[in-house]
């Protein structure tokens, strides 16, 4: 449970990063969400054997981290948390896809390894930028931006509630699990059975809490309408931010900049 607990603490500290006051932090959340969406779309749209055109995209996270003053190591650690999932997804590619695509003298690299590397690079890029987005904007502002960009209100409210109560729920489950551990005296306890009923209890407790929250909302005049009371403006700097980055990403998508650079260098030094 310690790991879940520290994961939640990390989530809190990611959220606290959003209180910063850099040029990037001050931009309207919608601009940052839009740019991140364009970025992710461009990155995931590559075919699976394309690896080199992805590298120039690292400019975006690097620039964002340095302009916003985010702790690089912290973000990197967050991304490595994801590695086991990516490995699970991609690890069989080299086994099944053995066709040699690149030949370095006697040494050949199969298509499987290239697609695996491509999956890994794309995951690091997309997940990294998503973390950076939350770090420079805050989860709440991201939800509100998504809503004002046309995401149905129901989803936005769901996400906000999920985020609000994930802390309460993990604390509750952490306590329950610690109590179980302490009473199983270092052994397995009753194994999976006790976990079953624990999860059941958590569900029931969540249900009860949901009812109490609903009562609290009704007590304060809730009629089904969430009023947003946020003043934000989509000014010149936002338009510039969105246009500059989006056109840069689209340019990278259409032109293989790595190859261009490569041929430039090899052209200069034949």
């Amino acid at each position: 449970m310690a790991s879940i607990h520290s994961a939640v603490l990390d989530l809190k500290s990611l959220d606290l990063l959003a209180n910063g006051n850099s040029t990037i932090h001050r931009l309207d959340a919608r601009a940052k969400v839009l740019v991140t969406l364009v970025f992710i779309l461009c990155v995931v749209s590559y075919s699976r054997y394309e690896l080199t055109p992805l590298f120039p995209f690292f400019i975006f996270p690097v620039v964002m981290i340095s302009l916003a003053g985010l702790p690089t190591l912290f973000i990197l650690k967050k991304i490595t948390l994801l590695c086991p999932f990516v490995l699970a997804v991609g690890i069989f590619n080299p086994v099944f896809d053995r066709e040699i695509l690149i030949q370095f003298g006697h040494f050949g690299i199969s298509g499987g390894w290239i697609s695996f590397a491509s999956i890994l690079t794309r995951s690091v890029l997309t997940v990294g930028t998503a973390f950076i987005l939350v770090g420079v904007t805050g989860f709440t502002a991201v939800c509100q931006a998504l809503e004002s960009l046309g995401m149905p209100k129901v989803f936005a409210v769901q996400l906000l509630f999920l985020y609000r109560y994930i802390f309460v729920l993990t604390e509750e489950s952490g306590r329950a699990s610690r109590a179980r551990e302490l009473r199983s005296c270092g052994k397995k306890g009753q194994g999976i059975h006790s976990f079953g009923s624990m999860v059941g209890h958590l569900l029931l407790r969540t249900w009860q809490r949901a009812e109490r929250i609903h009562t609290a909302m009704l007590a304060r005049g809730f009629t089904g309408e969430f009023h947003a009371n946020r003043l934000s403006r989509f000014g010149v700097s936002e338009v510039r931010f969105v246009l500059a980055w989006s056109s840069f990403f689209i340019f990278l998508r259409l032109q293989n900049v790595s190859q261009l650079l490569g041929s430039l260098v090899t052209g200069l030094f034949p």
Partner: protein
Amino acid sequence: MSHHIVEVKNLRHVYPDGTAALKDVSFVITHGESVGIIGANGAGKSTLLQHLNGSLEPTSGAIHIGHTPLSKGTLPDIRRTVGMVFQDPDDQLFMPTVFDDVAFGPLNLGYTPADVEQRVTEVLELVGAGHLRDKPPYHLSGGEKKRVAIATVLSMSPDILVMDEPTNGLDPFARRQLMKLMRDFKHTRIFTSHDLDMVLELCERVIVMHEGEVWADGPALEIFGNDTLLAECRLEKPFSMQGCPICGRKTHAV
């Protein structure tokens, strides 16, 4: 006519599982009174409170708030009149930031954004939480959460303040702060609590609940002086009336 009168007549509530939590409860609380509702666990205190703003419907009996009977039609009005502070502030603070949470009620009441802004700033200052306005609720300590929870209710300018276990889980300093806040509220106040010293300090009148009934109703000092009654209802004297364990001196004369 006063908005601040609470009248409960022959209230009875039976939960769907057949437990009769309230059997026959009647009392009248008038304008400006500060009333403590005390009793053992399961005596029906929380169930009673939940009736006062219509969160639970009575099985039989009636409730009048400021001479208006509590019914489906009058519910929105009554919920503005009766401000309810829940026992667990995590149930009450559900919005992304403290500001949004305090603004939730006023926005539902249809205040203009400028009014909401002013109202929120005022009540946050009042509860000493002005510096927390942009923080998310999960970054607050227990005492801060409680004060913000009270602010969310005060922002709707209620005529009657109802609080379930307000000092529960607070450190001594936060408890003192909260008690001062409640003393300064000039309208009708109704608390349930096991913190009998708080009840003694804040309430002139005490209602003792026992097994779903009103067992006693009278001046706080009189009730806390009645040892037989307290023992019957699984209660005891507030510490300040029990005398110092070392020298035996009492704070409150009985």
